[in-house]
């Protein structure tokens, strides 16, 4: 607070110059089973990034360990040049739709407002100005008229948009989205991708876990192919080709699979 404004703006400059996300040597293991090994990549500012890989490749785990929800065994994650703890206000997260109970007794507006809780602060109530802010975010994803619906009455696409609005309301600079296109209708999918492009034009960086290989080339400008390790990472037109896809999705057991299989066998014999 005592810092003079000039100094502060210089700090701001330094921070914005740093890349939105840099991951070094990230290794994560659950119960002795390696999930991610030596993951390393950097995301350029203002890009739409797709993370693709087969089931169990560790895509969700990667996002969660970036945010410190899952502890990493080794490695370093920096967001705008700072650890997540310090920069989490600049990160918006959209979890998988299936990760919550949609029968929970709240309205869509309540859910979107949750994106503001940290800003509102501990123990303080949600006020009407916060609700207005949440409504504006809902407007952006086209569900403002559903604000007072109980969330179980929303369609799958509307639920996904609710989650997006909850992240948007935070006005972050880096967004991490876990399968926002999974099980949504065509209208929602095109609405979401349009919105992501708008966000990109505003200078935001968006990282999306994606399943549909057919749309990767048209949706993203940067792609990370992941299967427990980074198979390839770079601009879509350079790394998104059959060779890399085979390496990522290939049926052949990779070395890592063999190692984890061996470890599981050993654990069982104990």
């Amino acid at each position, binding site marked *: 607070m005592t810092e003079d404004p000039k100094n502060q703006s210089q700090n701001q400059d330094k921070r914005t110059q740093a890349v939105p996300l840099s991951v070094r040597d990230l290794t994560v293991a659950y119960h002795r089973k390696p999930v991610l090994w030596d993951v390393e990549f950097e995301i350029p500012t203002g890009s739409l990034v797709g993370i693709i890989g087969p089931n169990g490749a560790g895509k969700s785990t990667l996002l*969660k360990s970036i945010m*410190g929800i899952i502890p990493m065994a080794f490695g370093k994650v920096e967001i705008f040049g700072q650890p997540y*703890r310090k920069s989490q206000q600049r*990160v918006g997260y959209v979890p998988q739709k299936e990760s*919550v109970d949609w029968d*929970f*007794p*709240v309205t869509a507006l309540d859910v979107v407002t*949750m994106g503001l809780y*940290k800003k509102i602060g501990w123990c303080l109530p949600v006020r009407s100005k916060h609700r207005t802010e949440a409504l504006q975010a809902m407007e952006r994803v086209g569900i403002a008229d559903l604000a007072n619906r109980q969330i179980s009455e929303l369609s799958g696409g509307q639920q996904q948009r609710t989650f997006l609005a909850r992240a948007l309301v935070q006005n972050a600079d880096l967004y991490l989205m876990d399968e926002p296109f999974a099980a949504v209708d065509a209208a929602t999918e095109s609405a979401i991708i349009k919105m992501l492009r708008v966000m990109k034009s505003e200078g935001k960086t968006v990282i999306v876990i994606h399943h549909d290989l057919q749309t990767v080339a048209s949706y993203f400008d940067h792609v990370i192919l992941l299967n427990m390790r980074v198979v390839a990472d770079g601009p879509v037109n350079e790394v998104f080709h059959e060779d890399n896809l085979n390496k990522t999705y290939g049926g052949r057991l990779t070395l890592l699979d063999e190692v984890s299989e061996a470890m599981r066998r050993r654990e069982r014999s104990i």
Partner: protein
Amino acid sequence: MSVLPLILAKFPQAAQVFLSHVFALVENRVAIWEQMQRLALLQDYNTRVVLFGTATLGCAAGVVGVFTLLRKRALMGDAISHATLPGIAISFILAGTFGWNEKSLPILLAGATATGLLGVVSILAIRNLTKLKEDTALGVVLSVFFGAGVSLLGIIQQMPKGHAAGLESFILGKTASMVASDAIFIATASLLCLACCALMFKELKLLCFDEIFAGSRGYPILTLDLALMTSVVIISIVGLQAVGLIMVVALLVIPAASARFWTDSLGNMTLISAGIGTFSGISGAGISAIFPRLPSGAMIVLICAGWFALSVSAGSRRGLIVRSLRRLKINRSVQRQHFLRTMFELSEEANSLAIVDGISLATLSVARTWRKRELISTVRRSVKEGWITRIGNQIKLTKKGKIEAARLTRQHRLWELFLIHHADVAPSRVDREADHIEHVLEPETVAELETILSEDRQRIPQSPHELPHQQHDSSAARNVANDLEKKRVNIRNQENC
């Protein structure tokens, strides 16, 4: 061989014996009447305080219960309360050996807290260190701790100086043995829990709804969970005297579960749950105060159960009655829509909406697969609602009915076309799918479909598939479909630009 007649033969006698026992409870009617008056007027200081204590306990349990229920930890309270018994017994024995007052509540509850927390730790340890699931851990801890407690109580009864009589009240609950200072203690602890939940309402809501998101926003999940579990421990422990350790879980689960049937808002759910908890606490303790032989825990649970039964059946949001009424209403509106659409399609086939004689019931009944009774009741309702007029077996759409039938048919067909062109559904499956979805169509969706499918707001598109009573070819429909395909390509192109 057959036991049933034997039981039935014995039943009157058994009932008589049972009733005589019940009446024995109210033998001294004058005294009981006086007691009730004293209770109702809150004349007695002790009663007043005890009722206040159980009321705040019920209220706090109702509020904490909402969060544990939504966090899907409802049974944790049960394990915790059972785990308190060995602590109570141990502190009783220790107090005896050191020559302190064995019945002092703080000493007993300190012991209860110790083993209660040990129970929580054991559950967490079993869950995290082994591959066993939480329900297994709960079962193991609950039974083992309770078994240990019961054994210790047996030992106490063998002791020469043991007056273990008061300890049973911890198992089943006995407000009669509560004094004012106990009640004040209970009320203080309950109010503390209430304040904690009220202050962190927003954070607990987030924790229960979306733990992962809460974690991503930097909320300390473990600390929040611990705060919630601490509240459960506090409620279980201060509830021991009033409700008893076997039944305190009911106060944590039933009010919250009942409240869910009345509302879809967490705030209201919390208020209703608190209300049910308060009421059950007061009335259970009150009944037990009048009839000291009825344990207050059992009374509180039974009153809770009454609320639960009422909520399950009559709950205004999810109660069985409301839900079956809602289903009936939907069924009726579906039937009406089918009926009107069929009327429209039959008239359309006859190339005129103004058929002079109307359509006969016989024609209608083969046009769709209705059950006869369904059709007749739908016709009767439609006459009453003014969609049709009926003369003998001839049915005619009224003016209002014509408009509605045209609207419904148009909506149905738009939806069918949408399914064919935008959802890539085979035409043979469209009618079924459209039936499925169109009944949940909202005006805005229809508007959206209209803009996608046609600029002409009045035109009714032809059915894209053959109608069940149409056998001739549907080249006209195919033309419509082709038109739409072109339009769709145009819209896509515009979007891409």
